[in-house]
């Protein structure tokens, strides 16, 4: 086989020059393209052989045979190639400068979207793995962590604001189990030190937010004359109670998953996506009944006690029990091959191609509340696409071209080695080398730095 199959004339369309052009513009661009003759995996409407996709102004304008584009539109010959929707990662920490504000069990006031790092090379590397959208998440140090940001991988735009997917619903990170217990109970000697404590953090925070909301309503109605203190944490919690923010909750064990669903039921909160949720398979019927979704690892387990009783068949069991499930990365490395991670559900549980690919396209889109815009190849949706040289679930498939809003952001045939956007003018090349350390879920980033320097630093280095 020849993995470096050429799909286009590289002289005509240089990604490099495109990137430079985009760098000068603060706003994200929208492009026009015609992708000819590929096998189009629509996700929602089956697989269409030898089919064209026309993109206009960053949207999918048409899907069909023998489509024509206006003169000057770039035409991509995808004969023999596979065109699928851009991959969506419902859990990652790339493209942000801060992950954990691990100073309190509740930090709903912080928002990682306010610290986007447009220069993060991990974004480009994710694009090279076909990922067009990721959910940049706060970490799992706190029971109620910070707000997250859905970003489009428009690598090359330099304005952090241009990475944000406009219109994507607000989301927030919650966390159960070992991490908040370790950081706050063990680390700071404050509640929670047990899973009992974690529950009470939710219940008391939500109750407090209700009082806060009432106080402000009274003031606004003129019932009181002095304005209450403004508290961004309470404001955010009140928005969660009002259903304005989707919850994405780091969780592992079955019991704690049930606990949070009970709490949410009591406070009238309906939307939740459980993240990692390694023991989700044990409570799949309850998740389905609640309407909760699940975003899981393909096969990570045994890196801590609460994932010891795990199974790589988790995604399959959840899917077959009617839970909307996605496969996520939570890792700079896994995000580079989520298509392969999704394929593992075929080895572990025998999902069919459609079911497997949904795990990294439409289902994460549903979980992020953006399924009306992305996640499948349909007329009117955002033109976020990836073209593979083989079926994307094959281990031998290589992403060739990744497109966001009709703009080509990754082109394997025009890939320079050094794709950094920011260069330290004093850098010494030989000291830019980093040894590998084993990456497990990255939800504990920053905590080690801010709270656990010294003795506990090494113990908590390996994430979770």
């Amino acid at each position, binding site marked *: 086989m020849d*993995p470096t199959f050429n799909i286009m004339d590289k002289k005509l369309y240089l990604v490099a020059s495109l990137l430079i052009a985009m760098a000068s513009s603060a706003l994200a661009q929208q492009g026009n393209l015609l992708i000819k003759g590929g096998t189009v995996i629509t996700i929602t409407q089956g697989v269409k052989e030898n089919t064209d996709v026309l993109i206009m102004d960053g949207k999918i304008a048409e899907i069909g045979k023998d489509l024509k584009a206006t003169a000057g539109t770039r035409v991509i010959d995808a004969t023999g190639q596979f065109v699928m929707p851009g991959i969506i990662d419902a859990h990652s920490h790339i493209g942000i400068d801060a992950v954990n504000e691990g100073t309190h069990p509740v930090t709903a006031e912080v928002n990682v979207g306010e610290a986007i790092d447009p220069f993060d*090379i*991990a974004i480009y*590397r994710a694009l*090279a793995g076909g990922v067009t959208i990721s959910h940049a998440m706060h970490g799992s140090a706190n029971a109620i962590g910070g707000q997250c940001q859905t970003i489009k991988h428009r690598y090359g735009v330099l304005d952090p604001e241009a990475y944000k997917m406009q219109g994507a619903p607000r989301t927030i990170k919650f966390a159960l189990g*070992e991490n908040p217990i370790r950081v706050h109970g063990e680390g700071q000697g404050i509640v929670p030190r047990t899973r009992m404590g974690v529950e009470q953090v939710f219940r008391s925070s939500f109750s407090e937010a209700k009082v806060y909301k009432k106080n402000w309503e009274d003031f606004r109605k003129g019932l009181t004359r002095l304005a209450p203190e403004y508290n961004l944490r309470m404001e955010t919690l009140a928005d969660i109670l009002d259903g304005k923010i989707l919850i994405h909750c780091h969780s592992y064990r079955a019991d704690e998953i049930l606990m949070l669903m009970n709490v949410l039921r009591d406070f009238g909160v309906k939307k939740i996506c459980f993240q990692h949720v390694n023991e989700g*398979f*044990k409570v799949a*019927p*309850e998740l389905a*009944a609640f309407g909760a979704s699940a975003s899981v690892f393909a096969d*990570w*387990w*045994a*890196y*801590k*006690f609460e994932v*010891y009783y*795990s*199974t790589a*068949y988790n995604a*399959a*069991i959840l899917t077959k029990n009617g839970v909307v499930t996605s496969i996520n990365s939570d890792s*700079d*490395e896994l995000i*580079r*091959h989520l298509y*392969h991670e999704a*394929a*593992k559900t*075929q*080895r*572990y*549980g*025998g999902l*069919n191609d459609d079911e497997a690919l949904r795990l990294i396209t439409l289902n994460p889109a549903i979980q992020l509340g953006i399924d009306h815009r992305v996640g499948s190849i349909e007329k009117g949706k955002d033109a976020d696409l990836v073209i593979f040289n083989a079926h994307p*679930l*094959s*281990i*031998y498939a*290589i992403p060739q071209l990744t497109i966001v809003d009709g703009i080509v952001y990754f082109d394997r045939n025009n*890939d*320079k*080695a*050094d*794709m*950094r956007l920011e260069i330290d003018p004093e850098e010494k090349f*030989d*000291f*830019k*080398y*980093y*040894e*590998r*350390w*084993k990456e*497990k879920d990255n939800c504990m980033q920053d905590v080690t730095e801010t709270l656990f320097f010294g003795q506990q630093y090494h113990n908590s*280095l*390996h994430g*979770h």
Partner: protein
Amino acid sequence: MRKIYPYRISAIIALLLTFSATQAQMVGKSERGPFLLKNATIHTISKGVMTGDVLIKDDMIAEVGPNLASGRSYTTLDCTGKHIYPGMIDLGTQLGLSEIESISVTNDFSEIGDVVPQMQALTAVNPNAVTIPVTRTNGITTVLVSPKGGRFPGTAALIDLHGYTPAQMDAGFRAVVMNFPSSGRRGRFDRRTDEDIKKDGEKAFKKLNEIWDDAVLYAKLDSAAQSQKATLPGYQPEMEALKAVVRKQQPLLIEVSKSTDIILALDWIKKTGVKAILTGVAEGYRVADKIAAAGIPVITGPVLDTPRRPYDKYDAPYTNAAQMMKAGVVVAIRSDEAENVRNLPFNAGFAAAYGMGIDEAYKAISLVPAQLLGMADRYGSIDVGKVANLFISNGDPMETKTTIEQVFIRGWKIPMENRHTLLYDEFLQRSPGK
């Protein structure tokens, strides 16, 4: 459900019948042959692909060929439409040395001390580790378990993934592990200045040479003492453990990844004359010609890794193995994993896609590792006289969706259960349900 697991279902029945006897690994008992695997596509790896039968007697592959005669005591498995591959060999794991990564008392791969080559990985392998069935049911039959940590963290051992005692699993190979001094940053938390990194590296290199000089001296005095039928005044376990390395009776596994460090390591190997195998070698592609010229083999991996430098090409880890191979380096691929050694074939699959090709990639996780360790007479391919470490699959084992249907280790027919499959069987349709 699309996939059918005939072997697993029969094993579940066996499990139910003999529950008390299966407590140890919770996965059932292995069965003894002879086994005649009929009418399979046999990927010998050594001599190409053929259609035919494989006869397993005791520990060994007794016959390979078309239309082998069946004996009365033989258990025959119809493999029509199935594939037979030699078991995969992973030469870089902590399998069985680590149960739960975040709980330090369950981790047995890193002893106190920077120079502890006498620490034996085999001693700490837990034959009942829950990770072992998870690994072998994916077709990995043999792994090198390696200590990790300081300059000389211990002695690695090759094990077959079946047995109830370390001795039963022992495949007979040992090698001392050495971490070559690194001039790289240890990770993103490493805030040392460039100067400090340089200094630390130079200091560590100097220290390494001191240790080595001592080891050479010790080996020399030891030989002299033996010829005089005398004993050395003091017993030094560290030096004792390095004796075989100094005398070139045992290879030294040198973990090194940064290009400039690799060059230094090659110089060091030349100077000391050790029988070396380089491991890790993430930046091997930068200095592939030099490694090839030195004739030092390489165990690289993981392939599924991020580039080491921010300015590296995004696929550098994927193409590394192929680039080294094309330069003439003998390359084996490892997972560098503990609980997910099962991803070894996928590491090889990515290397295959990014330039290595399917045949060479599978070789890099079967025959090449065996050759590297000098054990190709017994491991690495489907050939008569080799240890019967092999598996039956419904396709290319590096393809993600392929199912590994039956594994044999040293002739034992391995139960295809593990924690993951058992949980699946229990919870797919939970009862009670809602």
